[in-house]
């Protein structure tokens, strides 16, 4: 008897659950067309200037302007593990840009991740962060884009996402699981500056988009904010902003942190790789008070429990050949004892970019080199030469093992195996 009714009841429960989830998905896809009351914006020159500034701090053009292309006309691809997503046209062209959008449509895109036509946007556009942007700031950015950017007729490039990620229902499911539009909630126990910093770091500047661990579906994981993450297809590592042995700034002076954000260089370190681009395109334009606010917030981030690792490097002491490689190729700039030259060549002794457990950036910078960003504070930066054509994988592994275990550095060896993937990823000509 029990068995006779058990199956239909279970089936009915499944059907009801499916209907409920289906209804939620449909509601998510359809959106809510009545939640925003259209509001006319009067664009003052002050508002437009503020919008231009905020667009820079959000580094909107980092994705929405093609290298060498027309400003904000979109088209740059963002590679993700699910396929490539192409940034849209933000110029005021009515047909292909945002020329026919109202300020409320624009705010809905930032806050809800939804296009004017109600279509769900992919979170490669970092709306889970940018959702925090206030209506006032959104209106300023909108006023800037509409009034100061030349309209460009350019149809959006179609995303090349794999099934099932190319489906709005799948995206709706992702959003039900991982996204809720959020306004910034000030913390009354913290200073005005800390709150401003939190608003920018968590929101518009979207630092966590790279520096926070994501799950297999590309969503942030609770408790893992700013704990460092691989940039999957770019093969750089965005180091932890909370671990003291990575890129935490807890023991930096506020002035050093804000100088680093504005100039890409301070006594404590130099921006590198994708971060050099972020400084160049975005943070060098920070007003002093905002740079200090971001510094205040970043300095106060709760330190992660990552233990200061010491490794068995001593037992794998680098040999004489490794030291010779260092003397021949590196010591001219970085010094006989890895002491560097302040303002020019980073010290390697005690440098966390050298000793970090994740060696991605270290290997990449030796293979491909790199310049610090050109900024007002450092307009003629020094550059590290590429060595992909001068040193073999085995030589680089030996050299880096030497650097990671000398002058007080005590980090694990770099192996030949570590090198293989970067050689391929570099795609040298």
């Amino acid at each position: 008897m029990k068995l006779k009714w058990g199956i239909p009841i279970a089936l009915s429960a499944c059907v009801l659950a499916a209907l409920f989830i289906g209804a939620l998905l449909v509601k998510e896809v359809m959106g809510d067309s009545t939640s925003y009351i259209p509001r006319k914006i009067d664009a003052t020159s002050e508002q437009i200037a503020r919008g231009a500034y905020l667009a820079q701090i959000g580094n909107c053009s980092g994705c929405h302007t093609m290298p060498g292309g027309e400003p904000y006309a979109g088209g740059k691809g963002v590679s993700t593990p699910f396929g490539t997503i192409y940034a849209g046209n933000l110029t005021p062209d009515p047909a292909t840009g945002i020329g026919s959008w109202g300020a409320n449509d624009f705010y809905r895109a930032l806050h809800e991740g939804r296009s004017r036509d109600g279509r769900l946007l992919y979170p490669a556009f970092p709306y889970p962060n940018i959702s925090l942007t206030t209506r006032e700031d959104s209106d300023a950015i909108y006023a800037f884009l509409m009034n100061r950017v030349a309209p460009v007729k350019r149809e959006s490039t179609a995303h090349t996402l794999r099934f099932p990620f190319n489906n709005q229902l799948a995206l709706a499911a992702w959003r039900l699981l991982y996204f809720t539009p959020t306004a910034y909630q000030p913390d009354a126990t913290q200073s005005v500056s800390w709150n401003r910093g939190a608003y920018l770091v968590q929101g518009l500047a979207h630092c966590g988009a790279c520096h926070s661990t994501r799950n297999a579906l590309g969503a942030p994981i609770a408790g893992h904010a700013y704990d460092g993450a691989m940039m999957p297809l770019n093969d750089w590592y965005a180091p932890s902003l909370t671990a003291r042995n990575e890129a935490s700034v807890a023991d930096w002076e506020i002035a050093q942190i804000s100088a680093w954000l504005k100039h890409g260089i301070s006594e404590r370190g130099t921006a590198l790789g994708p971060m050099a681009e972020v400084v160049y395109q975005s943070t060098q334009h920070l007003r002093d008070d905002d740079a200090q606010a971001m510094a205040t917030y970043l300095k106060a981030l709760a330190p992660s429990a990552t233990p200061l690792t010491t490794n068995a490097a001593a037992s794998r002491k680098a040999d004489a050949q490794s030291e010779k490689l260092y003397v021949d190729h590196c010591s001219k700039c970085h010094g006989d004892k890895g002491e560097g030259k302040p303002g020019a060549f980073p010290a390697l002794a005690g440098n966390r970019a050298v000793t970090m457990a994740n060696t991605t950036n270290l290997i990449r910078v030796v293979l491909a080199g790199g310049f610090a960003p050109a900024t007002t504070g450092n307009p003629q930066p020094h550059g590290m030469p590429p060595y992909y054509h001068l040193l073999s994988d085995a030589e680089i592994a030996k050299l880096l093992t030497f650097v990671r275990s000398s002058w007080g550095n005590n980090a694990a060896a770099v192996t030949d195996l570590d090198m293989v993937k970067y050689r391929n990823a570099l795609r040298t000509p």
Partner: protein
Amino acid sequence: MKISDLRVGVARVATAAIALLLAAHCTAQTALSFDAMTERLEACIACHGKEGRTINAEYLPRIAGKPAGYLYNQLVNFRDGRRNNAVMSHLLQPLSDAYLREIAQYFSALDLPYPPPQAPKVSADALRLGETLVLRGDASRKLPACSRCHGTPMTGVTPAIPGLLGLPSAYLSAQLGAWRAGQRRAHAPDCMGEMAKSLTPDDINAVASWLAAQPVPSISKPIASLPAPLPIRCGGVPQ
């Protein structure tokens, strides 16, 4: 006019002059010494050779002594994706136009001896074809001679047209091939792209081999101007 008026006038002019000087000082980057630039540009020198002379790699061109405007255009084109080379593009991403201009001037100002010409590895017929295309062009195919734009001595024209001598033939043919395939581009109108698309692979091989076999004249500097206007419009080249 009273003396006091004159004094006020002089003071005003002096103040304006000082203000102008200050403004100039604040807007322009302080020019660095040669040594200070050398220290900064190790990243360039590692591949393009000490003082901009090429190292022993056929696809890495000499950049010393090329016209500054040409070098600047190439730096911008690499940074902005009109030329494709993963290493160059990566290196230049965070650099400003102002700094790229200084880098171009640094390498352009170098005056260094050239290597001897390469012994040609192609047939005499191919060399004859190369010579014809370079010096006379081919009117039937509407191909102007290379020297019409790159100068009769083929050492380039200031500020933005490069010389064609003293370069390895592998580099020259790779560049012409890249122009032809649209992998190397310049500011529109892209005159070199148009030219290269009119060349066959045999033409390219012939032109590259003949050019690489020519000695660089004792006056290796780019010439100041061309005797006649360019036969075709070129973006990035003042006309």
